[in-house]
């Protein structure tokens, strides 16, 4: 955002340069073929310009070898682009296991971000440089899309489920953050800034607001408030499964399948408990749809994530 009239976006994430390299390759390819094709058109137009009273040229019906050549060469080139783009896409969509998680909620027309340490922000996102960061996203109303051009990534934000975006910022500074999916009247206003800070500054920033509880702490209170612990306890008589260590584990269902207990699974378990039933348990869990807000939900999930050691004193 420094230059007044830039022609190329800043590159501030670990894969920004990879995307740019591919982009430049495609530009080179496009320029080559445009010049080739248009050059030939113009060359032929002058070289074979019709002379007055000229006879019609001899017909040329076709040539299989030529047809094959100009089918196979583009095919090979496009397959190279496909593989290259596909590998990088895989990288763009697959956060590393050690990524730090932040939650983001989009709604008409603002972004809210929640840091596990308890700090929240609106239309701004603070992240530390050099650390892989994953933002788990959902919407309270229509589709939105979190787009950070300097990081060369974006992801749609949907109501009713989680999507995620990740990046490793490589350069401190402030960058644009846009909503890229049309979401109604003030779509163009649904923008903000991403501030990349040094880890030390970030730590300071996280602690900057006093009196904020960590998300898992708030989540623990909600867990009690909604009386989840009446069924979910770390003891064998519990009516529901223990939630300790469930996050990111593989859960065996009563239909014999296993699913990974990611944020989306936890979300579904709470809002639509009948959708997947854990093996060995009855479908007695009530739905909390309409009772728990998106914000409370991510706090409860953050609490469940924090349950790594068996809890002794849930009550």
């Amino acid at each position: 955002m420094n230059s007044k009239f830039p022609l190329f976006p800043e590159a501030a994430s670990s894969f920004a340069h990879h995307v740019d390299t591919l982009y430049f390759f495609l530009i080179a390819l496009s320029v080559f073929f445009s010049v080739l094709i248009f050059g030939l058109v113009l060359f032929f137009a002058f070289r074979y310009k019709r002379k007055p009273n000229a006879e019609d040229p001899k017909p040329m019906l076709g040539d299989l070898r030529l047809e094959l050549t100009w089918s196979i060469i583009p095919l090979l080139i496009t397959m190279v682009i496909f593989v290259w783009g596909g590998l990088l896409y895989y990288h763009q969509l697959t956060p590393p296991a050690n990524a730090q998680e932040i939650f983001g909620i989009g709604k008409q027309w603002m972004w809210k971000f929640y840091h596990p340490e308890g700090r929240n922000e609106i239309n701004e996102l603070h992240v530390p440089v050099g650390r892989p960061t994953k933002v788990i996203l959902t919407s309270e109303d229509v589709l939105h899309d979190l787009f950070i051009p300097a990081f060369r990534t974006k992801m749609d934000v949907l109501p009713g489920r989680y999507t995620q975006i990740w990046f490793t910022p490589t350069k401190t500074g402030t960058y644009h953050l846009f909503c890229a999916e049309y979401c109604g009247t003030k779509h163009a206003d649904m923008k903000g800034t991403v501030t990349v800070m040094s880890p030390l500054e970030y730590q300071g920033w996280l602690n900057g607001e006093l009196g904020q509880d960590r998300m898992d702490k708030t989540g623990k209170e909600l867990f009690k408030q909604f009386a989840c612990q009446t069924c979910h306890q770390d003891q064998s008589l519990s009516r529901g499964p223990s939630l300790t260590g469930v996050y990111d584990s593989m859960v065996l269902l009563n239909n014999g399948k296993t699913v990974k207990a990611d944020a989306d699974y936890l979300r579904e378990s709470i809002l639509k408990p009948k959708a997947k039933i854990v093996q060995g348990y009855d479908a007695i869990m009530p739905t909390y749809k309409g009772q728990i807000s998106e914000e409370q939900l991510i706090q409860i999930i953050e609490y469940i994530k924090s349950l790594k050691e068996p809890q002794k004193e849930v009550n």
Partner: protein
Amino acid sequence: MTRLQRKHYINNGYGALSWFLTLDHKRIALLYLITATLFFALGGAFAIAIRLELLTPAGDMVQSETYNKMFTMHGIIMVFFFLIPAIPAVLGNFLLPIMIGARDMAFPKLNLASWYIYMLGGLFTFVAMALGGVDTGWTFYTPYSSTYANSQVIITALGVFITGFSSILTGLNFLVTIHTMRAPGMSWFRLPLFVWAHYAASLIMVLGTPVVSITIILVALERLFHLGIFDPALGGDPILFQHLFWFYSHPAVYIMILPAMGVMSELIATFSRKRIFGYSFVASSSLAIAVLGFLVWGHHMFVSGQSMYAGLVFSILSFLVAIPSAIKVFNWLATLFRGSISLQTPMIYAFGFIGLFTIGGLTGLFLACLAVDVHVHDTYFIVAHFHYIMVGGVIMAYLGGIHYWWPKITGRMYPEWWGKFSAVVIFIGFNLTFLPQFVVGYLGMPRRYHFYPEEFQILNVLSTAGASILGIGYMIPLFYLVWSLRYGKVAGPNPWNAKGLEWTIPSPPPTENFDGTPEVTEEAYNYGTNHA
């Protein structure tokens, strides 16, 4: 002023009813020509208003709500009421029966009905506009359209739904006509490539349009009765909408571009006086595009939250569909090689098509390429790309075709100098409008933004400057073509000395096209065979 003598389809009957109740495919084509031009003017007016608003970074000309309605109407009118019908319903209607040696379409009444249905759909759209307009974007994404938008979604949706039937019936009519009405000797591989292209496009119209019609009705149902189809709050799935919508709307691009490619083949052959090189490859690539075109819709959804593996599959299929288009371009090039090329207006437009379509096609590779699409999706890069194909490609071919067949349609020539001049103005204006949008898109400017950060301004100003040139470029032909109706040189049956059945009959053609049934004894584009 010289006069056209004798009786032809235009002076065969006067008065409004002779037009509004006509069953003559040529007159119906003219009805479409006039109405589609009006829609184009209206859609263009919205485009100009949009570009004016974007001249400055602040949203200072209209309110956001109005801006959103403007780009929505621009999209709906241009896509459903101009680009989709333009070439098939105007040039296709006029020429297809003549090119295959038929008296008319297989179902003349259905043909007229298509036009009325199209007009009815247009009427709904106008009513929606009069009642305040619609602000969902032409893509109607849910749950915004089905639950949240406070605008005339249902009436507009009905308009699009109704117009869809016009497209379906036109496609059906073309298919049956091509199958059953070919003159003796007109075998499949003697068909002009224009006919092949329309055949392929008709397949898409008939198979794809019902899907978008149903989808749009589902949106209306969810809106009216809160059936949970697309809105997660009601138990629906918003991505399902996108699948259904793009299942039609990607192939819809080929409904537009295939007929344009058909026009291109005719222009290239006539103005280089050669049979199209690799005729059967050009013909079958149209069919390949029609089939593959149905398998790539998911490339609009790489960051929609669909699975990554779906993304990979749709990406590779999207690259595959680029190949048949490349085959066509290379075959046209080979046709020019050692041709006898004359650069009259239609050929200038054809060259314009090759230039713009090449850029549009190559930038399509950026979007099929997953990693780059993640960055440029829903930015101005996409806006620029699809305008290169749909406006650069389709309208260049459309105007090229209008100029080429103008003497056949009206019996008179357009003024050549003005024709070339407008083609050049349009080419320059177009590039100035849309090249900067690639740059601003990669910079990160999202589409459908009423206002934007200051550093994007210069590129937007360039784009608006280009749009005004482009607007003037599109207006010039309007004037001189109307002028030529009275003052143009009388053309005679075959001013280009071209091959093809349409050039064997008088201009303008008589109502029944041919005296008796023509017998076809030679291949299409049978130029230069006196050597042998």
